[in-house]
């Protein structure tokens, strides 16, 4: 698995780095922590000092959260930054014991474009990105609603991390029969990391649950049962879904499968995803 963790210098990025570490240690992911240096800032030949210093701290926090004994990332210090392209700097953990890569990268450019570009270049399976807990809190510079835009436009699943709080239920909302194996595994990881229960929510039309969705829910239920994960089934009608998801997000980690064929993509239009992300102080998982 390849995980991308875009960061800036705000506290939510530290929360995202810690969350990413817990997921990474469970999945043995190759991780890229990506800092974006907006055009015009800092010196030309080195990454911005505040950003690189914050990234070193995130890296340290990542390694300590990944656990020293079983960590696949080793326990060394990041090597000095080196330029690897025009406005691109990289470093990684220099550890002989590392089995998986932990790379730090700074790119200069538009925040959204750089995140999407890096996700495409790496073939990322998963993006973990921090977001201010409240709309009024300081957020990503240069881009309004950045996290919602990343969640909408990224080719892979995205976890928008807000403040750290205990999650006792992970909720996966489903309305289509296309569910990728990666997304099932991600949900499984979320359940494991939070030691939470799983709720599989099917979206029903006025006529009831689509036969294919129902079959897929059954398969998903079997999949988790075989892994010993306790899963609850719930059905929600289209016109109740938005309120349901917003309410649920207060206490659960809400995961929404947003595939191309998804009706949820209509209910949770780009604006709605923004609203869900902005309206709650909980983390939101957009599955693809």
């Amino acid at each position, binding site marked *: 698995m390849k995980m991308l963790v875009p960061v800036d210098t705000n506290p939510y990025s530290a929360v995202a780095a810690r969350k990413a570490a817990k997921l990474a240690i469970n999945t043995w992911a190759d991780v890229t922590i990506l800092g974006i240096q907006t055009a015009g800032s800092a010196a030309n030949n080195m990454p911005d000092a505040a950003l690189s210093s914050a990234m070193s701290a995130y890296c340290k926090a990542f390694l300590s959260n990944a656990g020293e004994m079983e960590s696949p990332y080793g326990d060394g210090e990041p090597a000095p930054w080196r330029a690897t392209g025009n406005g691109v700097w990289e470093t990684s953990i220099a550890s002989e014991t590392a089995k998986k890569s932990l790379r730090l990268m700074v790119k200069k450019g538009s925040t959204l474009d750089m995140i999407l570009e890096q996700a495409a270049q790496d073939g990322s399976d998963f993006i973990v990105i921090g977001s201010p807990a409240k709309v009024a809190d300081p957020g990503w510079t240069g881009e309004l609603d950045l996290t919602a835009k990343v969640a909408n436009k990224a080719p892979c699943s995205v976890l928008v991390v807000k403040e750290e709080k205990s999650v006792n239920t992970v909720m996966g909302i489903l309305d289509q029969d296309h569910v990728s194996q990666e997304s099932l595994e991600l949900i499984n990881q979320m359940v494991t990391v939070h030691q939470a229960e799983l709720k599989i929510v099917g979206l029903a039309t006025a006529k009831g*649950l689509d*036969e294919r969705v*129902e079959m897929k829910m*059954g398969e998903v*239920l079997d999949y988790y049962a075989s892994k010993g994960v306790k899963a*609850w*089934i*719930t*059905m929600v009608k289209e016109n*109740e879904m938005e309120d349901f998801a917003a309410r649920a997000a207060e206490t659960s980690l809400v995961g929404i499968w947003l595939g191309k064929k998804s009706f949820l993509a209509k209910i949770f239009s780009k604006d709605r995803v923004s609203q869900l992300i902005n309206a709650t102080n909980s983390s939101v998982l957009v599955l693809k």
Partner: protein
Amino acid sequence: MKTALIYIEENLASSMALRYTSRLANLIDLALQVIHVEEPENKNHFGTGWTRRTWEHGIEEAGLQEVDRLLKTERIDCRFLGSPVVRVGDRDSELLSEMSHHPYNLYIEGRLNTASVRDFYSLLGSRLYRKMTCPSLIVKNLVPIDRVLLLAAEGVDPDQLTSCFSRLFDPESIPVDLLYFHFQENDSPVWEQEHEMADYLNEIITPLADKGWNIEKKQVVRGTPEKVADLLRDYGLVVSTFPTRKCPHYELLAMLPNPILICK
């Protein structure tokens, strides 16, 4: 041996009901009769006599194939009373007719848990549930049955609850707790002293103790149906009585994600 009529269709709810029943059969000496009802949309358009019988036979055959497919997929380990019964007509009428001819100890069906209490109200408000004389098990989710909760509240008849429960389950076959639910509008549930409801709770505890049951936890909770339902998620089965009117107890039954046994 107890007999149960289980209604199935080829869907997730029935799949869960079958699998849950298979688990239940480890606790209760149970023999199952599978039933399925095909409800034709325009049954008056298909004439009379031979034409109608042929048409009905075709529908029955399709229904039987549906039931067979599900039973083959689930391959549950249960004793069956006979071959699956497939009927054509109104679901409630056909099920009530089957129950009137064969006095089953239990009726079972799967219903997906929904976020809307109205769906549950319309299920329990249906002619089938109003007229049915045996207890009914509504399987909303597939969970392990390692602990049972007897749910009491205002309007719950202790005699009905204890006699129905003890008719189905043998003493000490499973750990049992007892909870009295009070409604309050406040968001956070509050646990109250058991002695507050001692007289009422004893009407449940004593007859069960006489039959060899030991109620492990006896609790009284005050809260909203939504929050209390959330507290009870660990129970593999919640047992209560049929609510006769819309009340907080009814709403709690609707909001519970657990399988529920409704005593009559």
